């Protein structure tokens, strides 16, 4: 299993008895492409942050690639994320003053040594595959269009050949034509590299691209008002 959750409870307030997430059991097999949806405030982004090791669990365990995130220190989770997990955020989160290539190089900078060989050629190849013209490779991220930034963000998430790719609402700013083009490109890329994908979106029309669809309410048994959450 790429992802395995057991008895997960999470609350931002550690003293609270009313968790935001309470997932008794959930798993994602290697190579699976999972579409995760749910209403705003249901805890989707929180779950993704837990899976990425950005947040630490309050109770229970999360195993990614058979490694228990809950047993790792913050620093170990940072390192694990750099080596095994690709992240694409809703706002792409590129560093605006760095070029497209430098944003990708930076993601590669934090991985363990074996992954760091031939970064530039691989980054250029990824950008080319994702339709970014070579003339834009050295342009600052801030000068790229939303669509171009989105593709650079994907290239960045793939540079370290992650086993797990977590994508959070990447199509919310796109029109339907751009969205379909993006989804086709994303699915081709993850299939080609045999990457396990967890994709979060409100847009139910995207389910057709995925082998499995999960509504967060189905796996999250926590009760309470989650309207304060960001997702």
């Amino acid at each position, binding site marked *: 299993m790429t992802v395995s959750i057991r008895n997960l409870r999470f609350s931002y307030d550690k003293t609270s008895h009313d968790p935001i997430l309470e997932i008794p059991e959930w798993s994602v097999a290697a190579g699976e492409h999972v579409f995760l949806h749910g209403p705003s405030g249901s805890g989707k982004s929180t779950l993704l*942050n837990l899976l990425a090791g950005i947040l630490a669990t309050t109770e229970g365990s999360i195993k990614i690639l058979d490694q228990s995130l809950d047993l790792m220190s913050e620093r170990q989770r940072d390192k694990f994320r750099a080596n095994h997990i690709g992240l694409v955020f809703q706002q792409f*989160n590129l560093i*605006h003053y760095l070029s497209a290539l430098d944003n990708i*190089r930076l*993601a590669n900078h934090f991985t363990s040594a074996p992954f760091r060989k031939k970064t530039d050629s691989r980054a250029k190849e990824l950008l080319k595959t994702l339709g970014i013209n070579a003339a834009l490779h050295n342009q600052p991220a801030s000068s790229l269009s939303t669509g171009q930034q989105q593709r650079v963000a994907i290239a960045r998430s793939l540079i370290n050949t992650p086993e797990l790719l977590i994508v959070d609402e990447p199509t919310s700013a796109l029109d339907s034509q751009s969205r379909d083009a993006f989804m086709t490109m994303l699915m081709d890329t993850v299939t080609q590299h045999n990457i396990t994908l967890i994709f979060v979106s409100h847009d139910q029309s995207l389910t057709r691209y995925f082998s499995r669809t999960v509504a967060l309410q189905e796996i999250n048994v926590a009760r309470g008002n989650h309207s304060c959450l960001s997702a």
Partner: protein
Amino acid sequence: MFIRLAWRSLLSRKGAVAMTFLAITVSIFVLLGIEHIRQQAKSSFNNTVSGIDLIVGARTGEINLLLYSVFRLGNATNNISWSSYQDISTNPKVAWTIPISLGDSHKGYRVMGTTTDYFKHFRYGQKQTLNFTQGKAFSEVFDVVLGAAVARELNYQLGTQLVLAHGVASTSFTQHDDKPFRIVGILQPTGTPVDQTVHVSLRGIEAVHAKRGQRDFTPTTITAFMVGLKSKMATFHVQRDINNYQPEPLSAILPGVALSQLWQITAIMENTLILVSILVLLASLLGLSAMLLTSIRERRREIAIMRSLGAPPSFLFLLIQTEALLITLASSAFALLLLFLSLLSLRSFLTENFSLSISTNIFDNNILYLLLIILVSAMITSMVPAISAYSNALQKRLNN
């Protein structure tokens, strides 16, 4: 990647970085400038006399005697008689003497009456002798030898005639127009007040002040004289003898001791200047720290992105430290350039007005130590923003 990231990050905040850069540049310039001029002034003063065992003048303070006899600063309280000079110079313990007579000037440059022993025995710097660029020492009554700076600034050549003025002001109403002197020698530059001096014979000084019809130009008084002893062991003994000289009240000083006293007096001002410049630098470095700390607040999202990509705490710490280092290094380099250009343009002004020979070679050990201290201080003051860089709420920043 690391340096490039720090550099691009700084470039993305040009305005704030430029202001911090300017503040640090100015403070480093002030600190290094004060230190360099202080060191050079001391070195210039210390290099002015070398190998002189005693300086003898009329009864006065040690520092005053040193200043007017060697540095041509201030005036003598009184003259000493020629007979006293002759008496002491024939002391068996005395190897040589250089009499000096001050009080006249030429276009603001001090005129010093002396004998040819001056060119033979006077030493400066590391016991260097006076050498001629052109010509030779005076031999006739109205011969004159110029210091290098006088010849250069007044554009005088050998054979040019000049007249002396009574007093030392740059404008004098009493010119000895009827007794012009002829330039027979020009000295090589020494970086000491010698360069600013017009040298004539004692007989020449006597001649310009002589009454009509006077034929004997043997001086009756001189301002002071320098003494070289046969044995250093006799220094204190001879000094005591001169200080107790019965026919006339005299003072004999050891130039090194008088210089030390001078430095003790100026130490308070030196330390105050250094303290002020250190405080200015500290304020600028705190400004650097504040700028970086503010930038951390503006860059929370950027830092959170780096953390989400796996950036370890050490990376973020070093990134902020590198930014501080780049600003401080650039400021130091610019301050050094500014200092060099300032010294280059102020050099002649300092030499002419203060008899200070300031070198434009700013890379001495003191300056390098100071630069090292500045860099270390910048690193220390940047620690707070560097540490705060990692302590961000990662998840909040990524989703906001």
